[in-house]
């Protein structure tokens, strides 16, 4: 967990944080009346690592596709980097790097060639982003090195493993040094080592000012990386808050002690819940509580303020019937 959002220094400077992604009542009805996304109001600020959570089929990918102009919303407004999407896609999208529902590349071409071709297929970004034809090859080499594919960039993608393809997809998203990264399940298919590398890479990019919109169903990944959480349940945004606030101490203290019975007797009514050696104590200050227990000869193996796990929060907010894929 992070103590302060990495963008806080920047946003403190101009006080009003710049909104990078903003939607109002975003709704998408697919043919047959399936309401994939149902009136969601997203707000992602510059410098955020925004964790977009939701079960399979909750509408994450459709939302991402709407943001990028691939799927046209039925109703609602979308603004990305301050401009309306999909109308202003030509000026917005060159500043966005995206990984949508898995990577894709031309199998018969090398990783490097794929990056160069993808870059060449679009308009050259304006202004300082630069990146014209001349240094295209260098930028591709650099992006490959960034994601750890430097050694295999010249091999045909056909022979890449799933993890390598995922890295190549990331390299393509990074190649034009975008202000905003929209990543849909970026660590899919990666081994634990790869997941850590990608996490470190994303943290480093975020520290240098890149806003990251990360859609995922892996709570652990989101918990370690994100500063804000949006939770989607059956097409509706049921939660959107800074992770630090969600995980703020609840005011209760967790005590684990081999002498739990004695501790419970000593603390009396303050014990809210007892589960074997684990006690949940309300209305106590941890340091004071610890001193009191120890001075009474009660051994304490663990003591600390209770923090809610993301998993509990998600479970509480989603009304999902277990074992059923919603719609």
């Amino acid at each position, binding site marked *: 967990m992070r103590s302060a959002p990495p963008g806080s220094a920047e946003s403190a400077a101009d006080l009003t944080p710049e909104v990078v992604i903003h939607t109002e009542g975003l709704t998408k009805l697919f043919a047959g009346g399936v309401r994939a996304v149902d009136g969601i109001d997203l707000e992602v600020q510059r410098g955020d690592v925004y964790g977009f959570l939701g079960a399979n089929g909750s509408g994450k990918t459709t939302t991402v596709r709407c943001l990028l102009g691939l799927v046209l919303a039925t109703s609602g407004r979308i603004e990305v980097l301050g401009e309306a999407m999909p109308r202003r896609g030509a000026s917005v999208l*060159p500043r966005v790097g995206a990984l949508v529902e898995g990577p*894709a590349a031309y199998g018969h071409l090398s990783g490097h060639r794929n990056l160069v071709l*993808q870059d060449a297929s*679009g308009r050259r970004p304006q202004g300082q982003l630069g990146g014209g034809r001349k240094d295209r090859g260098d930028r591709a080499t650099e992006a490959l090195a960034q994601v750890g594919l430097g050694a295999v960039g010249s091999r045909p993608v056909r022979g890449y493993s799933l993890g390598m393809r995922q890295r190549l997809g990331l390299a393509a998203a990074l190649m034009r040094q975008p202000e905003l990264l929209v990543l849909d399940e970026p660590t899919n298919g990666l081994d634990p080592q790869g997941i850590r590398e990608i996490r470190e890479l994303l943290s480093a990019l975020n520290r240098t000012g890149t806003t990251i919109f990360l859609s995922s169903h892996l709570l652990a990944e989101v918990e370690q990386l994100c500063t804000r959480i949006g939770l989607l349940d059956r097409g509706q945004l049921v939660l959107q808050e800074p992770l630090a606030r969600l995980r703020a101490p609840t005011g209760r203290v967790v005590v684990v002690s081999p002498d739990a019975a004695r501790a419970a007797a000593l603390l009396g009514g303050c014990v809210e819940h007892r589960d074997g050696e684990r006690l949940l104590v309300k209305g106590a200050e941890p340091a004071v509580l610890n001193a009191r227990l120890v001075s009474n000869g009660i051994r304490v193996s663990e003591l600390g303020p209770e923090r809610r796990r993301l998993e509990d929060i998600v479970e509480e907010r989603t009304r999902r019937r277990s074992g059923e894929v919603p719609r």
Partner: protein
Amino acid sequence: MIGSSDRGAEGVELVKLFSRRRTWVAILLLNLLPTTVAVLLAWTGIAPRPGSGPAFLAAVLANGSLFSIAALAIVLPLFLPIAVAVVAGESVAGEAEAGTLRYLLVRPVGRTRLLVRKFGAITTFVLVCVVSVVAVGYVVGRLLLGNAPLSTAMISLSGSALSPAQVAWRSVAAIGFITVSMLGVAAMALFLSTLTDSPQAASLGALAFLIGSSLLLTVDAARPLQPYLPTRYWLSFIDLYRDPILWSNLERGLALQGVYVVVLLAAAWANFATRDITS
């Protein structure tokens, strides 16, 4: 409009198309059929009687250079349109199937621009196919068949003599006419390619359109329809070798292909520009 900052981007589709081995295999196979015919002719020395068989095949034993035109007539009814339908059907649906379509569109490449580029690449492919058939036909004809001196006049379909220079420019015109003749099929396959995420379905759909058209041309009851069928004027390219050139069917052929291309590309655009990309 294509801005100056976009230079180079237009060639990406060509690079993608011609970096595929399957594109070159298609061109190779396309040339295999006329080459086989030339080998058989050289071996047996039996040419079709004048007026029967593919155009010009009767004359090639005497003048091998004419085999370049005969080769065109051999591949035109079936092989060439199949190659075009396969390549054009693959164009958008193939990207969708591979998942690269979404990355192209968020790069971003405008949807209209993508269609235009795809159609441009297909047109180039058709031109490369036709030119390769003419070139290979010429070389094969000179090597295997009648080795008449290059200065020999060709006897036109009307019976008069055409000088080598006249034959040369008429052949260039034939290449152009046949290329344009393929664009109707290409536009059909491109349109279907925007409807489905399966390249095979798009190609087969375009072939069905083609076979249907060829079939209706043989049915007397379909006579009122025949002037509007896409394959109706394909073989009219031989009118370029009459003296004087018989323009009427050539003009109709070009106009008809133009209408098909405009209507089908408009349909492709109308569908693709507002379509949800869920591939």
